[in-house]
Structure formats: structure tokens, C-alpha cells
């Protein structure tokens, strides 16, 4: 079935089964592999994208549902060569190890800072709680979000 999507500011047409998930379309049809597969059940946050500015699990969204929204993936956060402040802050704090969960964390943090530019420690933890990390960079990632928010350092 042909569906038109708006991804990272560009109209894209895909021809995929209607029940296909947004995640599979991003990764397998649009070549946007920065959105990662983690669980397929909305329990790990690795596949988070922005849908109309809200952080959502792309593995739970069908391509049909996605067609109604403006989708931003990790590849669409930077403006040309200028990284999003959250991306800059994650580099500055070296808030990553294997980096597999980083895309999802940055998406959640970007959505948080867009609605709350000065989040408390607890709001950061709550907003990023859906993003699981196995390498254990939570403390650094919290520091990175605070740095991006300009509340510390």
C-alpha cells in the first residue's frame, strides 16, 4: 500500500504493508537506521522518534498512524552541520558507551527540553526513564541533559 510520510521535513512515499511499523519503514525502506530496534514492544526506548514534537516508540506506531504526523528522527535533529544542543552535550559529557540507546535518549531529552527548558533532576529522570541503557551511562546522560538545558556548568 502506498503511503506518504513526512520525515525530517521531507515528504517520502513508501509502498509497504499497511500494518508495517514506522520503525521497520524508517530502517528498511527509508534507510534511516539511526532509529534502533530494541524490543518491538515499546519497553526500551531505543526506537524513539519525535511525532509532532512528542517522543514516541516507532515500533508501536503503524505507518498509517505515522502518516498523520510530522516525524523527526535522530538524523533530523541537527541543522546542517550544527548539532542540536542535546547532541553537543552528550558528546561533551561522553554520555555514551556502545551508543545503541543514545538515539532514543537524545530524542527523549530533546522533547523534554522543548516543553520544559529548565527541567529538575526528577523531571529528567522521569522523561528519560523509558530509555533503557545497559552500558550504564545514566549519570552522565543526566549531566548531559542538564548541560544542554544550561542549568549546570
Amino acid at each position, binding site marked *: 500500500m502506498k503511503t506518504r510520510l513526512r520525515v525530517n521535513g521531507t515528504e517520502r512515499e513508501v509502498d*509497504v*504493508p499497511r*500494518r*508495517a511499523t514506522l520503525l*521497520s519503514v524508517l*530502517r*528498511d525502506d527509508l*534507510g*534511516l*537506521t*539511526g*532509529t*534502533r*530496534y*530494541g*524490543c*518491538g*514492544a515499546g*519497553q*526500551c526506548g*531505543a526506537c524513539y522518534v519525535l511525532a509532532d514534537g512528542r517522543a514516541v516508540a516507532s515500533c508501536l506506531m503503524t505507518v498509517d498512524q505515522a502518516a498523520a504526523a510530522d516525524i523527526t*528522527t*535522530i*538524523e533530523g*535533529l*541537527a541543522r546542517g552541520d550544527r*548539532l542540536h544542543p542535546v*547532541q553537543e552535550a*552528550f*558528546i*561533551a559529557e*561522553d554520555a*555514551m*558507551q*556502545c*551508543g*545503541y*540507546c*543514545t*538515539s532514543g535518549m*537524545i530524542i527523549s531529552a530533546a522533547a523534554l527540553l522543548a516543553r520544559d527548558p529548565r527541567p529538575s533532576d526528577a523531571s*529528567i*529522570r*522521569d522523561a*528519560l*526513564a*523509558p*530509555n*533503557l*541503557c*545497559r*552500558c*550504564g*551511562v*545514566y*549519570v*552522565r*546522560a*543526566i549531566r548531559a541533559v542538564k548541560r544542554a538545558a544550561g542549568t549546570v556548568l
Partner: protein
Amino acid sequence: MTGWGEPRKERVEQRIRVEPDGTVVALSGKVEFGQGIRTAFAQLVADEMAVPIERVRVVLGDTAQVPWDMGTFGSRSVAQEAPALRRAAAFARELLERGAPVAGEVPDDVRLRPAAERRYVGQPMPRLEARDIVTGEATYVADVRLPDMAHGVIVRPPARGATVRAVDDAAAKAMPGVLAVVRDGDVVGVVAERDDQARAAADALDVAWSMPARTEGETLEVAMRDDGGVDDAVARAAVLLEAEYTLPPISNAPIGPSAAVADVRADGATVYAGTQRPFGLREQLAAAIGLDEERVRVLPQMPSGTYGRNSSADAPIEAAILSKHAKRPVHVQWTRAEEFAYAPTRPEAYLRIGAALDGAGRIAAWRYDEHTNVHTGGGLDARLAPMTSGRNAIPPYRIPKARVTLYVEPTPLRTASFRSLAAAENVFAIETFMDDLARLAKQDPLAFRLAHVDDPRLRAVFERVARTSGWGRKTEPRRGLGIAGTIYHGTYIAEVAEVEVDESGRVRLVRVWAAVDPGLTLNPDGVRNQTEGGIQQSASWTLYEEIRHRDGRIVNTGWDTYPIATFRDAPESIEVDVMGDPTTPSSGVGEPGAVCISAAIGNGVFAATGVRVRQLPMTPERVRGR
């Protein structure tokens, strides 16, 4: 340790290549999975060749280019590879200065640059991959996309070792997108244009399995230390303490389940894999698809973490078998449930300690029995058992008479390598027990440990972490400080945990301090990041994690039933002091951070509540003590 061997004579061109544009290519059989070795290697090669780090490209694990290597595990990458790379780079610079081609055997007396001239080594460096990671440009093994690539799914047997009797593929073959139904020995799978199509067809396949015969398996008993007279000494003891500790099986649980891409042709194969052993995998692949090893190229890709998981080759072999039959490049992506259900686990462990104190409150005798399972993918190996299943079973303390016995027992679960192997289990038991002994001897836990430490480096990390954590200070109500330390594969580490226990028995990790001495440090921030990560991951094992299984089948196969620590559970801070001496050879830091924190947390819980927890995970019920 068996297998590490003596340093080989190496040719410089196996290690260093200078491209026409001046790029320095450094080659190593080690593999990157987030521990930062690409950056560390680039730092030391740039220093030794006196070039800007931007001109160095590090090629890791490509079996078509790099020298043979046994594998990346045991926190050995820096210790093993740094000297070889450094010597090759130094020789390459000598050759370039003489205008000679970069070729020939690296001489024994190659002159290394003095430490004072190093520009990168020892400096904090952001990871080379950092920008690609934050922009999503970084590709992991699951992200490899080849022209004409199809997707494969394996049909899982009802039990390990079950064999295929018959396959009815009539329905599956007619389903949309299906390219091939594959049966190769006892491997059954489907290849289709899309992943969801392959999965639907695999579900529609009717496979008749024969269950394997039940085998009991053997127990291997290894005497790791026996000074004799331990039982007599215990019988004569002024004070005797005995305790037992239980740890459940747990999962490596990388966030991204296993994946691989294979392109198998009649005359050769290329396999993109997350692997800790590229050359070992090449050998396994060659056997699985019937090609000569030289015709198989393994191109290691970033997996999602590893923590030991990628010592076992699963998805790469499956992808290769499916590709061979489907005659297309095949991408295999395990589901979350497959990863939990079929990946190897960290074995469970049951530890028993008995120790006698003399009249002066010093340990006079020590009896230790470790019961666990095989800790590596290679199966039961009596020669390796003390270093794997028995890792860190011998305490780093002065003990006049000790008997340490390892029992490697059979298990219905698939077990294999896990971060720190058995060290985290043994150190949990030993360092928890040391706290109880200290109390019995009416001594402070730190002072009691130090009274049994001869090694100045171990003493130094204990003293440092005591200072940074404010050991001995009064904490807020319901809070407590716990300390633990050890020597892991040459790296000295001590940790203090401040915990808070609420009325329900829930443990919150408030802050952590660590002091780590890994000798010469290439990238101090890399050391801190690895140590922090080890602490956070191991705190999760300690407080939350347990695999449940029935008849050899794992039943909790999702994040809802196998919860791990989240952002809400992270401590307020983890402060890591790196105190490596630049004149001491480097040792690893990938694992040591994970080794002590269980005991430090448990000791903190005891300090806060008076309840001693000897079984993991430390659930609220266990912490309430009733």
C-alpha cells in the same frame, strides 16, 4: 593463562600501513563495542608516530586485514595490544624518518618515544565515534544494508539439542515475500523480502522435532588452593563464622538483540557480525557453510554492547546458513524474546564460606566452596576452570591457611561468558563475609580489611576510596555506607556505596565512589566511563535481575518480566578516582567496576538496617528480612 602465549615476532606492516595521502592505518584483531579501544589505540599510535590523531585510522578485527587474534575479552585489550601497536608504530616512524618503506620485522630494541613527548596518551579524549553516535550515523551490525538483501528468521527448537524429524513447508512457501524455506541439519528457517514476512512464514512452518535424551552431566571438582590443615585450624578456632550466598542466573541483556548479515556465494563469504572473536567466528562459519577459512571474511561491526554476549556466535552462523541456501545476502535480527530465551546466561552460583579468627581478631583459616556452572562458550575445560568459573575465588587477603574448592556443575541452561566471569559472584560472597568477620572481630570493616592486606596497591585504593567517600562519617537516617574491594586481572579497585533503604525494603543507591588503579592509563575519562558503567550495570544485577526457568526454558523474556535499572534508579553520582602509575603496565578496566558493587551495596544495606542479605537480587522482601 593458557592460550595467551608469549609475544610473537611481528612484522610492522601487519600493524601499521601508511596510505599515499598520509593516513596512518593501525591494524588490530581486537574489536570495539563501546569500551573505547579505537580511541585508545589511535591515541598511542598518533603519539608514537608523532602525527595528529585525525590522521590515524584504526581497523579492528577485519579478518582480511588484521593479524590473528584470540579475541576481545577479559579486559585485556590495552594490556595485550598496546605494547605491540606502540612498538610497531615506533618502528614505522623510524623507517619513515630513514625514507624506508614501512616493512620488516619489528626489532626487539625499537626505541619508544619518551613519555614527556606524548601528546594524546593519558589525556581525556572524546570517543572518535561520538559524533556519529549522537547523529544516528553510526551503524551497528543490525544496520548493515546490502544490495538485494533479504531477511531471515530461524524456527526455534522446543529444547536445546532437539533434532528435526520433518518439515512441512507447504503453507509457508506460499506466503507473501517468501524466498526460501531452509533446512540445513537441525537449522530450520525462512528467508523473505521483509522481516515481518519471514517471521509470519516461520510461524506457519510445521516442524516435527525429536526431543534430546536427558543427560545428567558431570561435576568437575578443582582444588584451587589447599594449604592443608584447614579443618584442624577451624576446629581449634577461637571464633568461627560460616555463611552461604546465592546468586541467580542473569542475562547479558544488551539493548539491541543479536543480529548479523551474511553474503555467502559459491566461492566465498562475507559476514558482518558483532563478535568478540573474529578469527574464532571465521573458523566456525567456514565449518557451518563448508568453505575454506581463507574464503570467509568476517567484518566485525558494533554490536549493542556485549558484556560477554558476543563471545558466542549465534546470529552470524544462522545468517550464513540462510544466505547459502537462499543465494541472497541475508539479514538476521533476533527479537527481544529470542535474545532473552536463547542467549547464554551468567550461571547461578552458590558460595559457602567458613573462617576462623585467632585471639587477635585475625583470619587464621578460610574454607571456601564455590558451586557454579561453566562460564565460557567453549564448554567444560578443567585447565581453564580456575580462571573462568573460579575467577576471584581466592581472596586478595593474607590468610595463613586456606582451602578453596571449585565445583563446576551441570545446568539445564545455556551458559557462557559474562562480564567479569565468576568474579562478581565470588567477590560478592567474599566481601560480604569480610564485613561480617569484621563485626565479629569488633573492628571497622575498612580497618579489618587493611589488617589483612599486604599489597600496597590494594591498600592504596582502599585508603583513597575511604577518603573520597568520607568513610566513617555519620549518614542520614535509613542510610548506610558499604565498602568492598578486590584485584581483578591486575587492576586494583575499591568501591563505597551509600544506600538508602525505605520502609518497604526498597534499596536506593544514593552515591558511589570508586578508586581504580589500572597501571598506565591511556584515556582517564575512558577508564572513568567504563568503571561507572560497570558499577551501574552491576548495581542492576544486584538489585533487580533474575532469570526464571522451567525445564531448561527461560520464562521471563521481556523487559517487563526481566526489569533492569532505569534512569530513575541511577545514583546521584558515581565518582571514580583513576590512580594508575604511568610506570606500571596497563591492565584492563572493562570489567573491574562491575565486580565489587554488589558487596558494597549489601554492606551499605547492613549499615543502614542491620539486615544482612546473602541472596541476590536484593528484593524488598529480602531486605525487610522477613
